[in-house]
């Protein structure tokens, strides 16, 4: 090995040290924090196939900001977005960064239950407010409820509970149940069974992320159930719905689902989803003035229909707005903000609702059907109300009182 020229080494080392110094200085610099600014950290998934959900949420947040003139609660607002890559430890690191580096006042968002279970305690332990605009794991509704945590969506079990109730009321029996084999899948089935009193022919859990359901479809056809209840979010749902239709079973065995047919998956399956039933707390056609405005704005600005992920995120910003407004911009008055949020005194896209002791909404749940829409993309339409002012099943385990 040739001996390096000492002078060259010194020069190189010096340059290297200089570069390191510049980098360190660059990292250390952060924009001066203006006192009257509101900072909100928004954690969602922006990359990968699930990025399509994050896109919808981000669009809705931006829409809310535009409608408020970029001032939430009267204060100039900055939203810092983070991409959790569907990983709980990345979500937690984002939360740490938002809290310590950007010094946000609120953290909102989070699609996935396992990410939320890592992020929410981080935020609340740091003394800041956490607004979940999607995930609703039962732990946070029950034993681990926290006064700094609010949800503008639902508790995971509530949506399948509504489907269980509807199918029970209709006297539907001999139901075949399918879901992916992971925590959310099992929760959905638990919620369903809590209200469904009929006979369940079989409960099948498929591999998470499975693409081909032909084998399971053959099995269920052999069992000859009267109805099928499934939970297949995202890409799994698109594949399942398509393959179900291709097997010719749509007309034979009616399909009831939760979080499977939605505004994000319908454009990919189109007519293959027609006639499917879902339950949800909201639909784009829900006749509430705030909702009609939201959907109209969204369609105009982005050229497509918003999903429930977006609607929930929109509400998240409006909730924060109501809180900051109530304390007249005094962000240090956290007790005041919490008291204001508990009143749910804002124009929600779901209509008027109240908060339960565990800071989860008490809201209606509707039966939706996939019907033909404008163009060739079907849409969701509300058929009837299944639950009015439905409470989740875990609030009794929550020790909060107010």
């Amino acid at each position, binding site marked *: 090995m040739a001996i390096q020229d000492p002078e060259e080494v010194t020069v190189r080392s010096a340059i290297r040290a200089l570069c390191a110094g510049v980098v360190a200085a660059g990292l250390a610099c952060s924009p001066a924090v203006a006192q009257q600014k509101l900072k909100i950290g928004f954690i969602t998934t922006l990359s990968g*196939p699930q*990025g399509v959900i994050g896109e919808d949420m981000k669009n809705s947040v931006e829409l809310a900001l535009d409608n408020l003139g970029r001032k939430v609660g009267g204060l100039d607002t900055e939203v810092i977005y983070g991409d959790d890559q569907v990983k709980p430890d990345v979500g937690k690191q984002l939360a740490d960064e938002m809290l310590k580096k950007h010094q946000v006042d609120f953290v909102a968002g989070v699609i996935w239950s396992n990410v939320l279970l890592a992020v929410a305690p981080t935020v609340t332990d740091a003394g800041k407010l956490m607004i979940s605009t999607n995930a609703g794991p039962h732990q946070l509704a029950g034993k681990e409820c926290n006064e700094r945590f609010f949800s503008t969506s639902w508790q995971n079990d509530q949506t399948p509970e509504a489907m269980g109730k509807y199918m029970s009321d209709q006297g539907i029996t001999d139901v075949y149940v399918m879901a992916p084999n992971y925590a959310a899948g099992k929760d959905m089935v638990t919620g369903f069974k809590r209200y469904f009193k009929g006979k369940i022919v079989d*409960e099948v859990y498929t591999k998470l992320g499975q*693409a081909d359901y032909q*084998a399971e479809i053959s099995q269920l056809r052999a069992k000859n159930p009267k109805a099928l209840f499934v939970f297949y979010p995202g890409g799994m749902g698109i594949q399942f719905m398509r*393959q179900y239709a291709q097997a*010719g079973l749509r007309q034979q065995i009616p399909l009831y689902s939760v979080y499977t047919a939605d505004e994000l998956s319908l*454009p*990919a399956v189109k007519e293959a989803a027609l006639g499917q039933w879902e339950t949800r707390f909201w639909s784009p056609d829900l006749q509430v003035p705030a909702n009609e405005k939201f959907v109209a704005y969204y369609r105009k600005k982005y050229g497509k229909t918003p999903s429930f992920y977006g609607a929930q995120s929109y509400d998240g910003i409006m909730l924060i707005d109501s809180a900051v407004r109530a304390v007249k911009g005094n962000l240090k008055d956290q007790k005041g903000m919490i008291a204001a949020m508990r009143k749910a005194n804002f124009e929600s896209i779901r209509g008027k609702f109240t908060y339960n002791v565990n800071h989860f909404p008490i809201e209606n749940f509707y039966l939706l059907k996939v019907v033909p829409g404008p163009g060739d993309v079907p849409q969701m339409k509300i058929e009837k109300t299944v639950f009015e002012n439905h409470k989740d099943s875990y609030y009794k385990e929550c020790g909060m009182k107010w």
Partner: protein
Amino acid sequence: MNLVLLLEQTLNGLQLGVMLFLMAAGLTLVFGIMNLVNLAHGSLYMVGAYLSVALFNLTGSYPLAVLLALAGTLAVGMIVEIVALRTLYERDHLDQVLATFGLILFFNELVAILWGRAALYTTMPAWLSGQLELFAGVRYPTYRAAIIVVGIAVAVLLWYVVTRTRLGMLIRAGASNRTMVAALGVNIRLLYTVVFGFGAALAGLAGLMAGPIYTVQPGMGEDVLIEVFVVIVIGGIGSIRGALAGALIVGMVDTLGRAFLKPVLATVLSPTAAESAGPALASMLIYLLMAAVLAVRPAGLFPARG
């Protein structure tokens, strides 16, 4: 467990095996001839799917879209080979794995930029979308039956090309001794490019056939990729016979496992135990199978060399 169901599940296993074979054949060919581990094979599958959807929307004709998509994937494959992969032949497998992994990230984002992250809508022509009434009262989707037919046809075609044509002879010679082949005056570089393009076209075929039944979205290749690697490892790397055997075995085991493992377990365990053990075991089954095969035959079932 009635006979009709068993027959239907066998067909399902066959169909899954055939799809895996199309992917595995291309991958194992490239590995056997060029000693290249190509993780981006899944990206070529994705390219085939995306091209077929885009071209169908453009031309409105399914046969035309299929042909153009195949040609397109072939072209993309050859370009990737010339631009990015040539430098990798001399490298060790680790470098190849990592470099092609980087390619995956790149392709996924590129596709997301061109077509967005949302899954694309795909459709199939009306004459393929019904069901067939097969023997013994088995109703099987026409499209899936078509996949089986195409897969078998490709297997036969491959066998013919490899054993009966000059190109096939060059391929087999190149697999055993590439320096000698080059010394005999054959343009090895061209051969490699052609073989890679061929493999890419096979992946593209699998992709365009998968389009109507699976989701077409960025990253769709990675879900299949691991299974395909399991197939060629079980079958033996570098051998098409191994790819076929491995693909059929994996397809069958996976399908029958998903369908019958829980009921079978329920006969020996309690229903609740079978409830949780069944799906858990079914998702791990092909990995267990691979570990078992490798424990007994560390080079797979039909390795190409010796």
